[in-house]
């Protein structure tokens, strides 16, 4: 929030003046009020492996993270470029595979990857869109310097927090929104529904029927699934509600079976269709892949998009962006060592203290090593895992992430953050001005995942 000479950065100026005039005790009270709002509304998530604490609140910090219009424009251009490249890449990988033939990506990396679905080869999803919803994880390291950490192109979560955080802030501090011109995020559900409906199968007559597919109330993101269905005004379905009848996917209603045209699924590829993927899946719909391939339903995101946000593919993103857009990437990639390569593995093992090592297929901050803060023993143990299965890991340097202020008992203190803006893709790319700011609440910590004790903030993109 501060510049090098300890002045508030320009977008924070108005906020800072307001903050200085507040009574600290009052702010602490507001912070508690916010927690009560979240608890009452049931905005919770589940942490797997904790039987007794099955529902948790994500800590919410009441100081907004503020981004200027100018910073945002650059970010938005970079994200749009990247999302277009991801879709072009997926289309290529499941059709001509020109990028492989051009020698820019090793064939084995694609074809031996679990996220690559041979079932998708030669199939073009409605509108040619693979990733309808993307959540790009970004960090800022300095003035105008942004890095992309991950392209979440499967089923990115957290957008309900973006919306509820804004709602809560507007309830608690209405005056701040008259002092600052903050760009709207509230249209997201409406835009999402519009975007999904516009990609209904060509044969769909009339108003497309959209539904959200959830694994059920015990899933960690269930709140979000019900929130999205509710705010879009569409049905929230589980696999057991759906059945393939006469070549269409239909849901069991109190009046009989009714067809669905677009399914926004929050269920992983593996569980989508027990006839095609995991036979033990009780979350999916037997036969949905056949319906999909015969063009009678749109699945968002398309099955098989995981190949584009795989951590092993990530390191090739600069090549991918250049290959399909013909331009250098606007947003930088974090330098990445692929441990599957002998030279890189050697380097990583020698520099564990400086690096963050992640599992190629991991998510949620599980199974990663943060070298600088890990103990000697943790590093030694991790080195063994690394040597046992090098291809399972990638490593990246720890970036000097920017910090933003959070409210603590003694006032404000700096903490590291990242940012996940949400992108909707149909015939156009729509980026919601804002996103989910995740913040590491522990002093010095770089891990922002909610499953690891991270919190969230409202994210403001100011108007010019």
């Amino acid at each position, binding site marked *: 929030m501060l510049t090098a000479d300890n002045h508030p950065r320009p977008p924070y100026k108005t906020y800072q003046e307001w903050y200085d005039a507040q009574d600290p005790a009052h702010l602490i009270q507001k912070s508690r009020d916010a927690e009560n709002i979240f608890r009452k509304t049931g905005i919770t998530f589940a942490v797997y492996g904790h039987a007794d604490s099955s529902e948790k609140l994500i800590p919410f910090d009441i100081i907004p993270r503020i981004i200027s219009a100018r910073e945002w424009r650059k970010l938005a251009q970079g994200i749009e470029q990247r999302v277009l490249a991801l879709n072009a890449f997926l289309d290529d990988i499941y059709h001509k595979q020109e990028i492989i033939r051009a020698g820019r990506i090793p064939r084995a990396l694609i074809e031996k990857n679990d996220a690559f679905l041979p079932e998708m080869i030669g199939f073009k999803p409605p509108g040619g869109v693979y990733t309808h919803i993307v959540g790009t994880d970004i960090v800022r390291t300095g003035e105008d310097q942004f890095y992309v950490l991950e392209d979440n192109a499967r089923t990115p979560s957290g957008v309900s927090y973006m919306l509820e955080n804004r709602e809560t802030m507007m309830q608690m501090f209405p005056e701040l929104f008259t002092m600052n011109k903050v760009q709207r995020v509230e249209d997201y559900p409406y835009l999402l529904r519009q975007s999904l409906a516009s990609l209904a199968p060509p044969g769909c007559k009339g108003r497309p029927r959209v539904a959200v597919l959830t694994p059920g109330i015990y899933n960690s993101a269930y709140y979000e699934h019900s929130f999205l269905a509710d705010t879009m005004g569409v049905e929230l379905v*589980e696999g057991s509600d759906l059945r393939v009848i006469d070549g269409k996917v239909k849901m069991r209603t109190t009046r009989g079976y009714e067809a669905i045209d677009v399914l926004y699924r929050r269920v992983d590829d593996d569980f989508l269709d027990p006839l095609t993927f995991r036979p033990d899946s009780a979350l999916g719909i037997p036969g949905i892949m056949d319906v999909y391939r015969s063009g009678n339903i749109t699945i968002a995101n398309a099955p098989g998009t995981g190949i584009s946000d795989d951590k092993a593919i990530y390191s090739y993103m600069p090549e991918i962006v250049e290959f399909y857009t013909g331009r250098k990437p606007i947003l930088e990639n974090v330098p990445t060592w692929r441990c599957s390569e002998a030279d890189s593995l050697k380097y990583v093992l020698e520099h564990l203290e400086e690096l963050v090592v992640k599992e190629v297929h991991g998510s949620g901050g599980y199974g990663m090593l943060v070298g600088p803060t890990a103990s000697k023993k943790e590093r030694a143990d991790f080195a063994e895992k690394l040597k046992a299965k090098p291809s399972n890991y990638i490593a990246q340097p720890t970036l000097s992430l920017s910090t933003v202020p959070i409210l603590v008992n003694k006032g404000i203190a700096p903490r590291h953050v990242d940012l996940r803006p949400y992108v909707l893709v149909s015939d156009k790319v729509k980026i919601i001005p804002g996103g989910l700011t995740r913040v590491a609440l522990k002093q010095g910590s770089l891990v922002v995942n909610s499953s690891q004790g991270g919190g969230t903030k409202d994210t403001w993109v100011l108007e010019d």
Partner: protein
Amino acid sequence: MLGRTANGLYWMFRYIERAENIARLVDAGLRVSLTRTGSTDGDWDGVLQSAGVRDAFGEVHDTVTAANAIDYLLRDTANPSSVLSCIEAGRNNARMVRTALTRETWEATNECWIELKQLLGRKVKAADLPEAIDTIKRRAGLIRGAFHGSMLRNDLYNFSRIGTFIERADNTSRILDVKYYVLLPAVSQVGSSLDNFQWESILRSVSAHRSYGWVYDAEYRPSNIADFLILNVRMPRSLAYCYEKIVSNLHYLEEDYGQRHRAHDTAAAIKSMLKRGSISDIMDQGLHEFLEDFISRNNQLSADISEGYRFYQ
């Protein structure tokens, strides 16, 4: 609407109704222990039977005492009909159908769960029991209030109402069945204090000890009590009232959907039986037999509804 959603609403409201009824039963039981000298453990046996959990209780406790009966009824999570279990199950169903509920109804349900989970998380001291029971009734009342004040009068509303009244009819008929013998003319001696006491306790467990006096004589008569709880359509916990409501809600569904199911016939037959019957006929044919038959027909209706509206398949 999804069949699963109809099912979720139906059970959400059955569980909330049950939680409230269990709290009423405990309340009536407490009243008995306050006004009676000597041991009241035998009365708690009756309360457990009315709640339909006497056998399950016997599997974990050797003897019935006031303390362990109350604990089992209010907060034992091994008892699926304890208040705590019912609220947990009701709220889980509410989460499942959250998109079908107004924000007010959901928040009232969620807040009920948050407060009761804390309240019943540890043993309730005897001195705090009246307050605890009051909280349960008040919380259930807030859900009902939010529901009536904010929900659209459509099929969602109808399934919720049907769940409420099937559960209520079940509960009232069980309360009567456990005590049917004290209502039989042959064994009761009008005016004996023991019987008065039993009768009042029946009325209390359906919160009807005051309203009884307005409708009938001040004096308790077994046939009047049975009439009040079975046939009186003004009494909101009577079987006849429940079936008025069930049939009218099923009728709205029939009009709305243009579909008639076996459930409609089942419900209509029960309603007309209650409408035609007189309490003396019922007593003559045997109150216990009547109630047993009613409970099984009420269960049949529940099954017919879940089949007709595709709750499960």
